[in-house]
């Protein structure tokens, strides 16, 4: 009898103890914000950095970043599962605005894409411009001297890559179907995954690929890849990041105001400083460049014009009909 009572008492104490512990350690309810993003901001660790700083300033918010690749990020936002997007494909961004899903687009940062490849450089493209390099790779590929890895996932980087092939006057459908001489393997590979994983694939295959400089530096430094830069940056390889809030009229999560807080933060001096500083300590240079700071200081008019030509929509960050109570967001 005594033993049985003891067991029952122990059980009750355990349940009570666990219940109390659970209750005492429950998190204080914070308002949550969901941001769907491109993979390059995430793979470099920048978003963790942003989250820490933003939540330090605004402890009542809990920001969740879902890194999916530009195309899926925009789809998630359209489904109403995210409150804003951070992406880098002006064409898809414009459609997001004109389809009525996005408002208050703000360009916040930029850097460049580069082409990387095996250090032996069998296709001999080092030092060429991006378009010449692509033509050379397309010529060498079928001979077995060059392998190309594409993102293949409709991401911002993938869109840029497709645009470059087009500018070089090459037809991707034809290139994708080509096989290396004497084998049944294509030389144009499609990874279908994030930038980081794509770089690892290219590393494994000793292939060339297009990457944003930030992700490349991060993976290079950690020693995961041994690829080297072969083609440097220029006007054609500009990479521009924007933030767009989901239109509250279409989005049912009701976090529009919080999204605007984050967008204003990114556009503020404090937010811009995050872009300016991230990476300097570990890599010796900033992985992303603060756009608004650059624009205000007018330190590089040529570059500023390039960004405007590439990423402006109808003469500004965001055409007036897609602005919503923007206040002083657009100066």
């Amino acid at each position, binding site marked *: 009898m005594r033993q049985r009572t003891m067991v029952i008492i122990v059980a009750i104490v355990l349940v009570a103890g666990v219940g109390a512990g659970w209750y005492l350690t429950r998190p204080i309810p914070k308002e949550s914000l969901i941001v769907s993003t491109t993979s390059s901001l995430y793979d470099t660790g920048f978003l963790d950095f942003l989250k820490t700083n933003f939540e330090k300033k605004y402890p009542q918010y809990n920001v969740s970043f879902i890194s999916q690749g530009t195309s899926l990020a925009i789809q998630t936002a359209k489904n109403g599962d995210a409150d804003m997007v951070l992406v880098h494909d002006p064409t898809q961004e414009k459609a997001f605005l004109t389809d009525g899903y996005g408002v208050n687009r703000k360009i916040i940062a930029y850097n460049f894409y580069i082409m990387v490849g095996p250090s032996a450089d069998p296709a001999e493209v080092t030092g060429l411009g991006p378009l010449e390099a692509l033509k050379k790779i397309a010529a060498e590929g079928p001979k077995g001297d060059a392998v190309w890895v594409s993102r293949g996932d409709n991401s911002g980087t993938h869109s840029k890559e497709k645009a470059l092939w087009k500018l070089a006057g090459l037809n991707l459908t034809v290139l994708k179907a080509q096989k290396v001489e004497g084998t049944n393997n294509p030389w144009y590979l499609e990874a279908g*995954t994030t930038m*980081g994983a794509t770089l690892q694939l290219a590393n494994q295959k000793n292939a060339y690929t297009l990457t944003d400089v930030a992700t490349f530096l991060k993976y290079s430094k950690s020693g995961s890849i041994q690829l080297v830069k072969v083609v440097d940056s220029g006007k054609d390889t500009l990479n521009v990041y924007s933030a767009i809030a989901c239109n509250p009229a279409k989005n*049912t999560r009701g976090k529009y105001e919080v999204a605007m807080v984050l967008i204003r933060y990114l556009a503020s001096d404090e937010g811009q400083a995050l872009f300016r500083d991230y990476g300097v300590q570990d890599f010796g240079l900033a992985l992303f460049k603060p756009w608004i700071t650059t624009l205000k200081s007018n330190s590089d008019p040529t570059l500023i014009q390039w960004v405007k030509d590439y990423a402006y929509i109808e003469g500004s960050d965001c055409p007036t009909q897609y602005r919503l109570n923007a206040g002083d967001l657009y100066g």
Partner: protein
Amino acid sequence: MSWQPILDGLGKAAELILSGDREVIELTSRSLQTAGYATVMAGLVGLPLGVLIAMRQFRGKRFVKTLFNALVGVPTVTLGLFLYSLLSRSGPLGFLDLLYTVPGIAIGEAILIIPIVVSFVASAIEAKDVQLRDLVRTLGASELETSLAVVREASSGVSLALISSFNRAFAELGIATMIGANIRGLTRVLTTAIALETAKGELGLSFALSFILLAVVLSLNFLVSFLQEGRLGRQGWLRLVMGER
């Protein structure tokens, strides 16, 4: 193949466990939570269902049994995709706000493992002599009492069903990824963290988390087996609580 990452992983696993690394504890506890809730839910639904299917005679019984056996192997990404479309805000169940949450993942995993519970329980009960059921019935037991008696006799099969489905849910990646999106601090679990670290090229950390995952699963399984067959004997603990000496 280089053994370095595996050795790194062993070392890191020990380091993470001994130092009580907060993030690892968070990941493990979240994995346990999702799998735990999933097993409880699946048990509540699957057990009665399995008993019913095993004990009743009805038209299409073989079809139903085969169906559940087949559903054990449903591809998790497909189930995950299906649930994602249902739970997304643009889908019919969006108002439940379950996407990107731990309960959402738990429900997804529960749906995944219900066929496992049903199949195992039904087989376990059918393995029991049909004369047992008749005997209990002739002793005057009601439907419910008969079912309880049969379940008690088949208890090792039932606990096998539950522990197997827990293992399955704990090791689940596809559903956790599709419904949870691997959000740090919110829905990241051991399996999704392993996938992420591998994609990042952090193989040492991946192996470390994998060893921790295996350690947790093995410990739990040994614990359950001990409670069943160990010092306390088969159902010794049950007899203890019920007052027998």
